[in-house]
């Protein structure tokens, strides 16, 4: 149970980390400040 809770907490923290990055990037898109890069 404890391990499950720890794993769930870990997933939530990772999701928050990824969500912040994604939202920042979408915000940059809104500001037209994100590169449309095809070469990598």
């Amino acid at each position, binding site marked *: 149970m404890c391990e499950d809770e720890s794993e769930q907490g870990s997933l939530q*923290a*990772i999701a928050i980390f*990824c969500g912040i990055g994604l939202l920042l*990037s979408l915000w940059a*898109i809104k500001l037209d400040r994100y*590169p*449309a*890069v095809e*070469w*990598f």
Partner: protein
Amino acid sequence: MQVFRIKIYSDFPNIGPLREEPMTDAVHGAAPQVTRVSDAYRWMQLAVGVGAMVMIANYQYGWTFFVSDIQKKFGWDRASIQWAFTLFVLFETWLVPIEGWFVDKYGPRLVVLIGGVLCAVGWAIDSYTTSLSGLYFGMIIAGIGAGAVYGTCVGNALKWFPDKRGLAAGLTAAGFGAGSALTVAPIQAMIEGSGFQTTFLYFGVGQGIIVVILSLFLVAPKAGQVPGIVQNAAIFQSRRNYEPMEVIRQPVFWLMYLMFVLVGAGGLMITANLKPIAGDWKIEAIPVTLLGMTMATVTFAATIDRILNGLTRPFFGWVSDRIGRENTMFIAFGAEAIGIFALYLWGHEPVWFVLLSGVVFFAWGEIYSLFPSTCTDTFGAKFATTNAGLLYTAKGTASLLVPLANYLQQSSGGWDSVFLIAAGANIAASLLAVLVLKPWRRSVRDADALRDRRKTGVEFRLGSA
């Protein structure tokens, strides 16, 4: 013969078996209790991962061939269409740690299978949609699927090859970088012959199905199936498996992240802007002849750059397996700084533009093999997919810094400051690798080993042979 029996309570279940090994004064100790798989089997696992990566390459690198036809059919402006691609890259990059978490918990098969289905569904949506929002939605779905496949295959390579981690990660990442080369001609031919919507459907579903089939062969290594930690003084591998939450609390992780961002952003500032740079230098369309081939400067550069961007990943990964991750970083990032500066000095000449942009790509693409292998060496293999995925998001963070280059260019009216900052970022990362990261990682590994000994105890028993 005198025998010392050492009991190892490893918390490294995916790599080192829990075993009791006699340590003798003879050259060889006893064989592990758990059977190791053959190298052929490990290479087969790697090949399956590379195959899946080749299959998802087109979702990213094949996109460019669809843009003109989409524009012709629907009349949307090019920039609006390109946002679909940007959304693909964003969702492909930022969700990798979450997908990695499922891989580390449930294994690679299910995640790659779902990834293949999502890729197929994404392009199928794009084949039927008649709206921009539908196009965006399809590319977001495909991006999530491609990210699931990418993160899983890299993570699986890191787990199966602790002894050749750089090479394995590099080959896998190269499958993604260079995989589209195989299908460029068929995609273009089908778009021309049957239209882009049919091509979206057939290639999207076809490649997705192949990914699903390949996923059925993917498994994660069990305890004892792969070699233990590497006995190479230049490579620091920890026996300990850090959980993702522990990793993000480690300052050394954030040093790696900073270095990834520095090199990623420094390289991207140049590589993402090669076309406008060539345009400003008025060399974009000048024909260049090299090795008996003649192409416009930018087209030639793009062709060479794609090949070198693929080759560099296994090459520097292989080098790092021999001379150490940080030493390789020092060389590669240093070469990147020199390449960028040389491009700034001599790139106004079309031939040099092509050659030096190749150097810049060659010295840049290895970040996709060096950083995952360094991360797994430091934090262990058990959660390698999640941890490498967390580090991989530095690519997304680096992309956020690229507009800085455009701002600098617009405010100064030239590319000088962009080149100098990009070269400087690479010099900084190069020095950080050998002066800070190397001793720091060594101390982390040594501290883990000491803590393991204190925590678990080491039993020495005297016996006889």
